């Protein structure tokens, strides 16, 4: 996975760096929640696992891995690592079938 580093230290919440489009205002993006919640695979029908996926949140004060979608731009999803207390972003990676286009392994 190619890591797209934030362009400078000051990159905080108001501006997100989309792996495809570059730095943009965060109004262009939609927050999609905790990225650590992973859907159980299609062959897992366990209510408990699905409940965990849907309802449990770690909700940390500090580093948070979360999903954002560049809704008003390329509509790409990305996993943003952001500090919930300072709003500072330390990392942003693309996710989805298109990550290979950025040189990643997906």
């Amino acid at each position, binding site marked *: 996975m190619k890591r797209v580093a934030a362009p400078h230290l000051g990159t905080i*919440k108001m501006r997100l760096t989309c792996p495809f489009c570059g730095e943009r205002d*965060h109004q262009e993006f939609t927050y999609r929640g905790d990225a650590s919640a992973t859907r159980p695979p299609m062959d897992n029908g366990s209510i408990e696992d699905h409940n*965990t996926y849907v*309802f449990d949140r770690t*909700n*940390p*004060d500090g580093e*948070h891995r979360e999903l954002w979608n560049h809704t008003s731009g390329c509509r790409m999803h990305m996993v943003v690592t*952001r500090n*919930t207390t300072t709003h500072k972003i330390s990392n942003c990676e693309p996710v989805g079938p298109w990550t290979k286009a950025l040189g990643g392994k997906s």
Partner: protein
Amino acid sequence: MTRYSAWSILKNALKGNRDWTPAWRKPEPKSSYDVIIIGGGGHGLSTAFYLASVHGITNVAVIEKGYLGSGNIGRNTTIVRSNYRLTPNSQFYEKSMELWRELSHNLNYNVMFSPRGVLNLAHTPGQMDTYAERGNQMRLMGVKSELLDRDQVAKLNPGLDVSGSARFPIEGGLLQPDAGNARHDAVAWGYARAADQLGVDILENTEVTGFLKEGGRIVGVETNRGEIRAAKTGVAVAGSTGRVMKLAGVDKLPIESTVLQAFVSESIKPIIPTVTTFGAGHLYVSQSDKGGLVFGGNIDYYNSYAQRGNLPVWEEVTSELVAMFPNFARLRLLRSWGGIMDMSMDGSPIITTGPLDGMYLNAGWCYGGFKATPASGWCFAHTIANDKPHALNKDFTLDRFKEGRMIDETGRGPTPWYH
């Protein structure tokens, strides 16, 4: 301790106000209490007050990390209402309304509960039907409600743009005539003073750093002022729920913390009589007794523990406000600030025993914590005293999400940033 009254004010004034005493004591922590409440905000203080006044449990400590009332009780837009659609919510919030009406008297502290009316604007016939459905639910629960047409709305709030050419023309609205607002800080101070008089120790600047456990049971807390033991420990810390519960080893909850901004304008002469909400977006506005317009809208959607927000919400909130009241465009924003909301997965609260033995949890208030302050404390005190919930909070469990018994007013599901 002086009883507050017009008489006591006069008497003290004659003595140059030198004889007033602290509104509450600043005691040293005892080594143990019957009950500890973590969180010296509105809900924690009201819980302590009702434990002492209703259940006779007075050996209680309220532990507050900062100054008393430093959380959301001192940061909200002060709206008090019970105009809910779903039965568990409407009966709970109506209990709160009953307590609000008595509160100044019961606390001997004027919390300035002002039943000026809460008006929700509707912009389509369909929305009128939705409000009728809610208004009818309220009526069936014994709560006052009125469905107003456009002319009635215009008469109530003369500044509103009720023209047909408005982007979202006003069709009418739902009024809860005896809802309103209150002076938020006074609620915290009033409960604190009343609880203190009943013997509750309020420990300010006391930070919980860990929990004491014996055989899986919570038996007290560690603080920066030493260990404090208790048979029962209640947690009522609003936006800090995630942080505090992690200290007890509860790493995951159906809660996400986000920032909600609030706004106040400069003081002006009375211009809007009711609390008014916009129906084609998310905005609520009222005018404080001092004359400032107090308003707010959506949360800043992302998770946050910073008590400040960002510009997009400013733009959204002000543009909705001036669309509703185009005569407000020249009035000026004085101040804005942020508070941390613990958004639950269905937008409704949690008041429950557990999730650990010896522990009780009061959390997940989303936007709505202030109006709930009296009933929240009343129900939480009942739950702690009896080790089981009252009928009014039996549905507000922590397990309801996983059981499929969500209490979802907006129907947005487990996407807390939409509630």
